[in-house]
């Protein structure tokens, strides 16, 4: 029976979860603050509702509100939560306890935190069955093992006896998911379950969630800040902003026809895989999410909205129905929807302000030759002769031409941050050499001369740690000016203010302390501090990954501007391949301390690929449910750098090994050679180039033209 047949429509179904006009408030020292208001949505059996929004938008509050687990100071003010037809609001703690973990299960962000560090995995899992189903211990364990098998956990019986810290992050998250599904819940709430994981692990977890949903027919409420992830898992999407659902529709509908300015803004401010700075532009959303105790009187998004008119500031727009199942809380949804189409298309168009890429060869500013950074770690056994060595960076070579940007991508632990720290001199080289503008920089920073130090500066990842909380913004930007005597003493303050202005911050920031700044502002100050002494080379270590998406764009744009105006060369580390692709001229892909592929950005994102690059690209969540992306999943987790695999370091996880004769025996034995695709594009692999060239592009999504 090869033919496809439409299923017989089932009778009208009661949704598993139906939330009506939910409002939740918290008792704080500023009085009662409403964190969530007027939230409605429903999730049917086997359906996934994605809830997306920036941090502080009330997504998690809704999740905890559903199981009425709001802590001592939170309460549901109004609304109904119908779970399988019955209202959960006002249920006794005892009744709720019986539902939790049985019919409603939750999975949230950090699996390490979610598991009890001092209990074995088996005990933690089995007790769900023992408590709810009064199962015998060995029977419960039997079931747990079967469930672990279903989440593709290798060696489940062994895992049962382990403690959480003995598992990798991806495995922990599988355990948490398995634990949630043990009692076959009707509703599964997942709060950023993949955010703490690496891209390839995240992709595997998302696949798993899809598989399990089909098998268990569970209704899933999936919370994430990442549009790409939401696009991959959701059937329906609700966009939350400042405690309200501002738009809600089927997934495709919302991604193709965003009709709320905030939804549109979110889509325009993240680069899509394939966008590059030469041909596109990111549109940041100005301002920041208002704190729940200081909401604007009218539309919550009005202060940040490009479509706002006077009436938006006066009254709150109602939720209105655009098409069937598409609801928007905006007065001008139709206008936004039509303009949105143009706007989305426009981001692909070349804008006048975007600079021409410089492709003519320029002089090389930084050369890294066979750099190695090894750490010795304490021996595991008491009396062992050899000290184990972690080869964090192992034989990395590249060069960066002046005024270009080299991006370095790879998953956590691949050595990209170590490499950058070695360049700036915070890490001692164990071997190899580095040269910067003709000077040897293979020595630590304390042995470099002041001028050399001045010329290499760095922007760090975590905005909350990048500024010293004890000193004012002005003092901190001025410090490099003073130290490197970049400007005369009496002009330091003027210079600081000039830098602030360059960062689109006004002079009033001079006297502020870091805690008075938002994440994006902190990061701008950090950039100002880095460029204050006019360095030739700026190293950016994940400068935007800790920021909310709407702020990321502004910071990326600023970095681009800096580079354009000052002609700075940059090294840009990130794990987000879309951002790297957007921002960088050249890209190096790192795996376990080595570069496996390097070349111009567009060459990296098109075949031939290194098999690892191919897997990375296929794992990137793309914020477009219609995009076609091949599924290439890596098995296992990244091996330990303490004892890296022999031969090709990627051979333990390589999905393309079988292309080689006898299943790639050679990969296990011999280190792979560099193969040059073009003069600049090189791949470290045993598979012959001709064969690599025959690979299909991972993402076949073509740039959609609205015109």
């Amino acid at each position: 029976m090869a033919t496809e047949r439409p299923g017989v429509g089932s009778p009208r179904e009661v949704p598993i979860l139906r939330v009506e006009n939910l409002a939740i408030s918290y008792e704080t020292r500023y009085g009662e603050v409403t964190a969530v208001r007027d939230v409605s949505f429903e999730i049917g059996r086997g359906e996934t509702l994605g809830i997306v929004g920036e941090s502080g938008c009330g997504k998690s509050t809704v999740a905890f509100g559903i199981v009425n687990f709001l802590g001592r100071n939170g309460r549901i003010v109004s609304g109904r939560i119908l779970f399988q037809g019955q209202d959960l609001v006002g249920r006794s703690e005892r009744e709720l306890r019986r539902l939790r973990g049985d019919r409603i299960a939750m999975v949230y962000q950090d699996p390490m935190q979610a598991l009890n560090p001092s209990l074995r995995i088996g005990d933690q899992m089995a007790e769900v069955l023992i408590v709810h189903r009064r199962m015998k211990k060995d029977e419960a364990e039997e079931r747990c093992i079967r469930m672990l098998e279903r989440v593709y956990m290798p060696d489940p019986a062994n895992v049962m006896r382990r403690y959480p810290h003995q598992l990798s992050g991806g495995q922990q998250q599988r355990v948490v998911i398995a634990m949630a599904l043990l009692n076959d819940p009707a509703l599964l709430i997942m709060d950023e379950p993949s955010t703490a994981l690496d891209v390839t692990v995240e992709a595997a977890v998302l696949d798993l969630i899809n598989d399990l949903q089909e098998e268990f027919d569970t209704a899933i409420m999936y919370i994430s800040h990442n549009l790409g992830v939401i696009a991959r898992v959701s059937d329906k999407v609700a966009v939350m902003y400042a405690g309200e659902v501002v738009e809600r529709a089927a997934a495709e509908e919302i991604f193709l026809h965003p009709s709320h300015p905030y939804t549109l803004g979110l889509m325009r401010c993240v680069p899509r895989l394939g966008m590059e700075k030469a041909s596109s532009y990111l549109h940041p959303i100005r301002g920041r999410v208002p704190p729940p105790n200081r909401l604007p009187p009218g539309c919550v998004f009005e202060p940040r909205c490009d479509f706002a008119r006077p009436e938006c500031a006066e009254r709150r727009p109602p939720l209105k129905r655009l098409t069937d199942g598409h609801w928007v809380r905006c007065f001008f949804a139709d206008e936004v929807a039509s303009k949105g189409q143009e706007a989305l298309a426009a981001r692909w168009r070349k804008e006048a302000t975007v600079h021409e890429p410089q492709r003519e060869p320029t002089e090389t500013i930084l050369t890294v030759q066979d750099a190695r950074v090894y750490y010795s770690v304490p021996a595991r056994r008491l009396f062992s002769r050899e000290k184990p060595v972690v080869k964090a960076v192992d034989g990395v070579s590249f060069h960066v031409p002046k005024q270009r940007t080299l991006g370095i991508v790879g998953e956590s632990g691949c050595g990209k941050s170590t490499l950058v720290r070695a360049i700036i001199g915070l890490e001692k080289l164990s071997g190899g050499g580095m040269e910067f503008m003709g000077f040897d920089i293979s020595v630590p920073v304390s042995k470099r001369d002041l001028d050399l130090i001045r010329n290499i500066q760095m922007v760090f990842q975590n905005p909350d740690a990048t500024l010293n909380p004890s000193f004012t913004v002005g003092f901190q930007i001025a410090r490099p000016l003073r130290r490197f005597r970049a400007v005369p003493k009496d002009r330091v303050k003027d210079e600081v203010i000039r830098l602030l202005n360059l960062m689109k911050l006004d002079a009033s920031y001079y006297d502020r302390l870091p805690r008075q700044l938002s994440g994006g502002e902190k990061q701008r100050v950090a950039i100002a501090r880095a460029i204050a002494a006019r360095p030739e080379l700026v190293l950016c270590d994940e400068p935007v990954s800790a920021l909310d998406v709407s702020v990321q764009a502004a910071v990326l744009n600023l970095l681009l501007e800096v580079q354009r105006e000052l002609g700075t060369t940059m090294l840009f580390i990130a794990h987000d391949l879309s951002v790297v692709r957007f921002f960088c001229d050249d890209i190096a892909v790192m795996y376990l301390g080595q570069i496996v592929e390097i070349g111009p950005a567009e060459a990296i994102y098109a075949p031939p690929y290194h098999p690892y690059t191919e897997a990375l690209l296929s794992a990137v969540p793309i914020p477009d449910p219609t995009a076609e992306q091949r599924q290439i999943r890596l098995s296992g987790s990244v091996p330990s750098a303490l004892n890296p695999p022999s031969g090709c370091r990627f051979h333990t996880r390589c999905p393309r090994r079988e292309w080689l004769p006898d299943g790639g025996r050679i990969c296990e034995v011999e280190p792979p050679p560099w193969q040059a695709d073009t003069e600049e594009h090189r791949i470290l692999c045993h598979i012959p180039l001709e064969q690599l060239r025959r690979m299909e592009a991972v993402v076949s999504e073509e740039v959609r033209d609205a015109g």
Partner: protein
Amino acid sequence: MLVRDYMTRHPLMADPDMSVVEARRFMGENNLRHLPVVGEGKRLLGLVTRQTLLVDPGRLGSLNVWEIADYLSRLTLKDVMVPADEVITVGPDVPVEEAARTMVEHRVGCLPVVDENIVIGIITEVDLLAHLAEMMAAGVPAVRVTVRMPDVRGELAKLVTAVSAQGWGILALGGAPAPRKPGYWDAVVKIRGIAQKEVVTALSQVEGHEIVDVREA
């Protein structure tokens, strides 16, 4: 084609402490005819149907109006439900037709699907009818032929051979003993993408077979 594939997962369920009044409202609101009553961990405690919610008038006879109201408001599901040991249930790995037979045999319209006494779903007559409709590809335009043949081994194969000899694909195939004609078998075949006439021509040549009914469906 097992029960687990056709049952409704995560059915609406009720607590044994739910009042009968509330249950009646709940079932009406959500258009339910059967409501499994479960305890902690979804353990099956009983089953409530619309009939069980109808209160035995004999019991009320001796009560006055106020007493009746009071009696009704205190009545909970655990007082009226069919207790678990009397409920006919089915396991998830049972073939659908077995479930159907069970339902026919016990004259019930619904079977809670239980796995070690835990309710994991519910299968009702509607689900089974849906299954039947699907099996016979109801609603898909095709030629539907009913052929009567002797109830002898190899007869159905002849029919199938005849169809495939023409290079046609079978959309659905079903069979049952011919009504009121012992020793014979009626087979229904649905074939897509051809004219009724061609089918009749092709199948009427099969020896010993008689076309009982043919139509475009």
